[in-house]
């Protein structure tokens, strides 16, 4: 069993960190519930590897606490935490057979041999490795090796969390989805907390029930793939998740809403008050290309914009257009009429998100 709690956790590689920029991980509070399937997603350099090393015990955090089931484990080494880890490149013991590889952690813990036999066979069955048990691990394919390294974690009864560090990097593209499926099945069969670290949105969203998106040392959103798509809580999430990413344009506030050049977007008084309290002029509106409405004909509700480019992506089109001084994108479905030089677009109200200082602002108690 493991619930992993990060309490006021921060980490800096500097001895005397001064500003936020000196922190690889900025102060955060976070809980990974027992039995959850999680992903830690972010671009390179966002701090996700540092956080992974803190969870696995390879790195002691400079500030705050990491708790396993409420017990502080800051300085416990990996071997004393009940975790297993699957690395980017398969780690297997070359000279041993697949069976011996799987039995290795149990033998190290002096588990009786008959118990090792049954446990290894059980796990090999689930991972579909049974026919390979007698083979030298060295001669396996990359996906089989990754399964073996996962199996070494699964054989142990004391393991309650498995960490994955970009585990599909070296797997053939055609085999990737099968391994992703296997991972999901394993999560359902074993009552394990799984944390999957990756920079690939597809890997993260396919595996995890909840994704923590990291950016510049902080978790900017923790939510389901659905929430990340429909309600990104930071401009970075909007940009990073989805292809193409979210459209943003800078606005100012007025008495009744947001002003963009000569266009007025109405907003509730309550929301405007909230923004006023924050007191900044970094205000952006954002909308996903999927939600921009493109009309077939001139329309009184729609803005007229100049079409810059149409990308034909086979079964859909991406239209780039000039919306005042911002270039934006809209997704057109296959049978939709393709505008030529002018297009009429509108933004359905429920899909226009407000970002203040890059973070999403919603009306409280709404």
């Amino acid at each position, binding site marked *: 069993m493991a619930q992993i709690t990060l309490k006021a956790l921060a980490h800096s590689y500097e001895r005397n960190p001064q500003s936020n920029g000196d922190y690889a991980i900025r102060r955060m509070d976070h809980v990974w519930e027992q039995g959850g399937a999680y992903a830690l997603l972010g671009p390179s350099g966002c701090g996700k590897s540092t956080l992974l090393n803190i969870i696995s015990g390879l790195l002691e955090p400079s500030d705050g606490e990491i708790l396993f089931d409420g017990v502080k484990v800051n300085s416990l080494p990996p071997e004393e935490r009940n975790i297993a880890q699957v690395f980017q490149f398969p780690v297997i013991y070359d000279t041993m057979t697949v069976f011996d590889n799987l039995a290795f952690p149990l033998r190290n813990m002096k588990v009786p041999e008959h118990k090792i036999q049954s446990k290894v066979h059980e796990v090999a069955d689930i991972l579909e490795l049974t026919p390979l048990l007698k083979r030298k691990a060295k001669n396996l394919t990359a996906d089989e090796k990754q399964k073996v390294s996962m199996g070494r974690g699964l054989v142990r009864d004391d393991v309650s969390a498995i960490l994955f560090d970009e585990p599909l990097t070296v797997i053939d593209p055609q085999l990737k989805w099968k391994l*992703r499926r296997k991972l999901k099945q394993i999560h359902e069969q074993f009552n394990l907390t799984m944390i999957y670290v990756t920079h690939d949105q597809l890997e993260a969203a396919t595996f995890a029930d909840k994704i923590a998106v990291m950016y510049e040392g902080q978790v900017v959103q923790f939510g389901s793939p659905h929430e990340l798509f429909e309600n990104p809580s930071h401009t970075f999430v909007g940009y990073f998740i*989805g*292809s193409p990413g979210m459209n943003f344009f800078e606005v100012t506030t007025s008495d009744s809403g947001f002003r963009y050049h000569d266009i007025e977007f109405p907003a509730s008084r309550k929301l405007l008050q909230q923004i006023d309290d924050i007191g900044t002029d970094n205000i952006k509106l954002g909308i996903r290309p999927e939600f921009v409405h493109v009309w077939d004909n001139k329309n009184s509700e729609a803005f007229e914009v100049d079409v810059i480019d149409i990308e034909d992506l086979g079964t859909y089109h991406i239209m780039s257009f000039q919306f005042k001084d911002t270039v934006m994108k809209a997704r057109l479905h296959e049978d939709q009429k393709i505008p030529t030089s002018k297009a009429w677009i509108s933004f359905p109200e429920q899909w226009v998100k407000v970002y203040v200082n890059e973070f999403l602002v919603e009306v409280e108690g709404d």
Partner: protein
Amino acid sequence: MSLILENVSKSVDGQSWITDVNMTLEPGSFNVLLGRTLAGKTTIMRLMAGLERPTSGRILMNGVDVTGVPVRQRNLSMVYQQFINYPNLTVYENIASPLRLAKMPKKVIDERVHATADMLRITPLLKRFPTELSGGQQQRTAMARALVKDAELILFDEPLVNLDYKLREELRAELRELFRQRNCIGVYATTEPNEALALGGHTAVLHEGRLLQHGRTPEVYHRPRTIETAEMFSEPPMNIVKAKVTDTEVTFDETVHFQLNADLRMLEPGQYNFGVRPSHIGLVPHADDDLELPVTVDLAEISGSETFLHVRNEYMNLVLHLSGVHEYDVDQKITVYFPTHKLYAFDLAGQIIHAPHRLTGV
């Protein structure tokens, strides 16, 4: 200039790497070579560059036979998958190197380097060394070096493969823009159908050393001549379903059948393979005569803004390409709607018999 490959074949140690390829690259065109690993993309590029000599056939540049002309005497440049720059030279010197070799005057070099660096947005990095750059910046430098010298032919061998996907999106769009303004032939190798679509221009689909089809990208995508092209140029791959056509009906694997509709009426009775695009199968019906198929979910792959849903029933495995995020559990039972109008029909030899009509585009 134009580039023509005429009956080009290449075999190495008795193994045929390229088989009888005929291809004409128009002046100023951008051409994507699409194919899986070992399809022959790199070999064709090396043949075009003159790094290899074809076993048989001719290569013509502007109508002149250049088959035996070594690479140094041709005006071309190449960008590779690895970020290849001179580590001991600054970004500026890296970009200037082909011009220095051509003994251009200093002033011209300076102008050109700055213009190219501006184009690729690396002007602030000119004084740095390649090791101090990120992957994306290194590849931009390599591209600048290829673009600076006004080559007649520029070859890109999977240049974006080692970059993360947001950077790829960006560079792809820039590359499209760059080639629009240039009058040289661009050749770009990739394994990803979606990259070929995003780059536009022309696409040549290669498979096991053979050229399957070459033409304008949307044309090749929407009007594949064979089942192989349809499968290669689709990500996720086009769903293929075996079917029997009678005078009145289409039957899939004995269980699912529907009335022969206006689209398919021209099909002679017999056995066919029907192709259906992953984006044409839906979670809700699009037309009244869509087929309702109960299926089991294998996996929902979610890419952030799209979902690839792998499903199966007793008779077939299907992939759905859905816009937006749709979360499903493994082995969940759902219903999907299979179109009867947007079907491609191939005969058993793999030749196309029928492609669906399109309301927009090609």
